[in-house]
C-alpha cells in the first residue's frame, strides 16, 4: 500500500507538472493572440485613414519635431504613400494601392490569429485532461493501473535490442526435427544433425554420381583441380556478370566431388548446383561444370585468353597426338571437328605462320574490338555462330566426353561451319579456359562483351561442359607449366594482335 501511495504520489506529481506546462503554453498563446489582435486593430485604423486621406488636397497638421515638439505644417500629396513592404523595401503607391496592400496584410494577420486560437484550444483541452487525471488520482475512485517495467528484462538482454534472426540461418529445421526424434540432445547438436542430414542427402546424390563417373574423374581430376581454381575465378566472374549463381555453384561443386565430400557442404546450400551437376553427370559430359567457363569466354582480355589458350593448346596437342587430321587445316578442316581440340585448332585462324590457337574465339574478334568489350553486331553474330558451332560440338561431345570422342557429327559442323567465318572460332574460347588456375582470369571479367556473353555463357556452358571434359583429359599440367604456356600464348596472341 505504501508503495502504491508512493507511486500514485509520483504519478500525481507528474500530472501536476504536465498540467502546469500545458497552462504555460496556453498563456503564451493568449499573449500572442493579443498581439495579433492589436496589429489587426492598427491595420483597420490605417485602412480608414487611407480612405479619407485623398479627400483633400492638403491638410493642416501639427508635425512632430523631435520627441517633444510639434510644428504646424501641411500634409501634401495626399494620394502618394510610401509603403514599407518589409525587409527594408519601400514602394511609392497611391492611396488605393496602399489600401490593397493593407488588405493583404490583414489576411496574413487573420491567418496567424486563427492558428493561434486553434493551438490555444488544443492546449486548453490538454489542461482539462490533466486536471481530470489529477482529480482522479486524488479521489481514487478510479485507479490508474500501472505496471512498472522490470529492469530484470533489461539485464537479461544486457541492453541489447532483440535481433531478428536472419532468414538464411539454417538451424530452423533442426530444432523441429530434433524435438521429434530426440529430446535429450542439445539444440545445437540437433541443428547440426539436421543440417548434416540435409547435407548427407545431397552428398549421397553426389557420391552416386561420382561413382558413375569414376573413370572420368580420374581424367577429370586434373582438370577438376583446374576447374576448381577456375571456378573460383569464374565464380567471381559470374558474380560480376550476374549469371545465375547456379553455374558457379556447379563449378564449385565440381571440385567438391572430386576432392571429396567436405567441399560439398558449401555447395549443398544450392540445390540448383547439385541438380546441374546431376544433370551434367548423367550425361557423359559431366565435367561440364565448366559452365562457368563461358564467362571466361567473355573475357577477351589477353590474360583470360591466355588461360584458355593454354588449355586449348594442350587440347590441340592432345588431339594432334590422337589424331593427325589436319591440325590447323584452317577453315576447310573445321568441318571435320572430331574432338573439342579440333575446335581450338579451327579457332586458331590467326596464324603468324603458325596455327596459334586463339585464346578465345571471341578473341579474334576481340582483337578488332580491342581488349575492351565490344558489343558490335558483327561480333554478336559471330558469337551466335560460335554458339551454334559450340552446340553442335557439344552435342557431339556429349556422346563422347573424353578427348577421343569421335561422336562429333560432321553433319552439324558443316552446317554451322559455313556460316561461321573461318577466321573466327571464338565460340569455345570460354570453354577451354576452365583449367587455368591463373587468378588473372578474375580481373578480366569486366572487359567481355556485356550483352553477348550472358547468352553465350549459358549455351557455352553446354558446350563448355563437353569441351571441358575433353580438355580435361588432355590437359594435365601442373599450374606452373600452365603459366608458362600462358606466356607463350600470350606472346603469340600479342604478335597476332
Amino acid at each position, binding site marked *: 500500500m505504501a508503495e502504491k501511495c508512493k507511486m500514485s504520489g509520483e504519478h500525481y506529481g507528474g500530472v501536476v507538472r504536465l498540467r502546469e506546462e500545458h497552462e504555460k503554453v496556453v498563456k503564451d498563446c493568449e499573449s500572442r493572440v493579443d498581439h495579433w489582435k492589436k496589429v489587426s486593430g492598427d491595420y483597420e485604423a490605417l485602412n480608414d485613414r487611407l480612405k479619407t486621406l485623398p479627400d483633400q488636397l492638403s491638410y493642416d497638421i501639427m508635425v512632430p519635431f523631435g520627441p517633444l515638439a510639434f510644428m504646424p505644417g501641411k500634409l501634401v500629396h495626399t494620394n502618394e504613400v510610401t509603403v514599407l513592404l518589409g*525587409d527594408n523595401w519601400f*514602394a511609392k503607391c497611391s492611396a488605393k494601392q496602399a489600401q490593397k496592400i493593407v488588405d493583404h*496584410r490583414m489576411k*496574413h494577420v487573420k491567418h496567424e490569429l486563427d492558428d493561434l486560437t486553434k493551438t490555444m484550444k488544443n492546449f486548453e483541452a490538454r489542461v482539462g485532461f490533466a486536471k481530470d487525471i489529477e482529480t482522479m488520482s486524488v479521489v481514487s475512485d478510479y485507479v490508474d493501473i500501472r505496471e512498472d517495467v522490470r529492469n530484470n528484462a533489461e539485464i537479461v538482454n544486457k541492453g541489447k535490442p532483440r535481433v531478428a534472426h536472419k532468414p538464411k540461418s539454417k538451424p530452423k529445421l533442426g530444432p523441429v526435427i530434433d524435438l521429434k526424434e530426440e529430446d535429450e540432445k542439445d539444440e545445437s547438436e540437433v541443428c547440426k544433425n539436421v543440417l548434416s542430414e540435409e547435407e548427407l542427402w545431397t552428398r549421397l546424390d553426389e557420391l552416386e554420381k561420382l561413382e558413375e563417373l569414376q573413370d572420368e574423374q580420374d581424367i577429370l581430376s586434373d582438370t577438376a583441380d583446374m576447374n576448381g581454381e577456375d571456378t573460383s575465378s569464374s565464380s567471381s566472374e559470374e558474380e560480376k556478370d550476374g549469371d545465375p549463381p547456379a553455374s558457379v555453384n556447379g563449378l564449385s561443386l565440381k571440385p567438391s566431388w572430386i576432392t571429396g565430400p567436405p567441399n560439398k557442404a558449401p555447395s549443398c546450400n544450392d540445390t540448383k548446383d547439385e541438380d546441374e551437376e546431376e544433370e551434367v553427370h548423367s550425361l557423359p559430359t559431366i565435367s561440364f561444370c565448366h559452365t562457368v567457363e563461358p564467362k571466361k569466354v567473355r573475357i577477351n582480355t589477353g590474360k583470360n585468353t591466355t588461360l584458355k589458350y593454354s588449355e586449348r593448346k594442350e587440347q590441340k596437342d592432345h588431339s594432334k597426338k590422337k589424331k593427325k587430321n589436319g591440325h590447323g587445316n584452317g577453315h576447310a578442316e573445321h568441318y571435320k571437328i572430331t574432338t573439342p581440340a579440333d575446335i581450338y585448332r579451327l579457332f586458331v585462324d590467326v596464324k603468324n605462320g603458325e596455327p596459334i590457337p586463339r585464346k578465345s574465339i571471341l578473341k579474334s574478334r576481340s582483337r578488332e574490338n580491342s581488349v575492351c568489350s565490344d558489343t558490335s553486331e558483327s561480333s554478336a553474330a559471330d558469337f551466335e555462330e560460335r554458339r551454334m558451332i559450340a552446340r553442335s560440338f557439344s552435342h557431339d561431345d556429349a556422346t563422347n566426353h573424353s578427348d577421343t570422342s569421335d561422336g562429333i557429327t560432321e553433319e552439324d559442323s558443316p552446317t554451322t561451319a559455313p556460316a561461321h567465318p573461318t577466321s573466327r572460332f571464338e565460340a569455345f574460347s570460354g570453354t577451354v579456359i576452365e583449367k587455368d588456375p591463373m587468378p588473372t582470369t578474375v580481373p578480366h571479367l569486366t572487359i567481355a562483351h556485356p550483352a553477348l556473353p550472358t547468352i553465350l555463357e549459358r549455351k557455352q556452358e553446354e558446350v563448355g561442359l563437353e569441351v571441358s571434359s575433353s580438355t580435361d583429359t588432355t590437359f594435365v599440367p601442373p599450374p606452373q607449366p600452365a603459366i608458362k604456356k600462358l606466356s607463350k600464348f600470350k606472346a603469340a596472341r600479342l604478335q597476332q594482335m
Partner: protein
Amino acid sequence: MAEAIQKKLKAEVEKFTQIQKDVSKSMSLRQKLETQLTENNIVKEEMDMLDSVNTVYKLIGPVLVKQDLDEAKATVAKRLEYINGEIQRYDALLKDMEKKSDQHREVLSSLQQEFQKAQGLAVGKA
C-alpha cells in the same frame, strides 16, 4: 573511486550543457530565419500587386535608394531561396546536435548509476 566518477560526471555534465546551449542557439537562429522567411514572402506578394509605375526604394543605411521593380522582385526571390537554404542547413545541424546531446545524456545517466553504486559501496564499507 567515487571521486573519480564524480569528476567524470562533472565533465560530462559540462559537455552536455555546452551542447544544449548550442542547440538552443541554433534553434533561435532558425526561428529568426523563419520570421524572415515569412516577411520576405509577404514582400514578394505585395510587390506582385504593384505596377511598374510605382517606384520602389530600398533602405540602405539612412538612404532610400531607388530600385527597379523587376530587379527588386528578383532580389527578393533570391533572398527567399537563400533563407530556405539556410533553414535546411540549420535543420541538419540541429539534428546532429540533438543526436550528440542524446549520446551525452546516455553517458551521463550511466555515469550517474556508477556513481550511485560507488557511493553505495562506500557507504556499505563505511
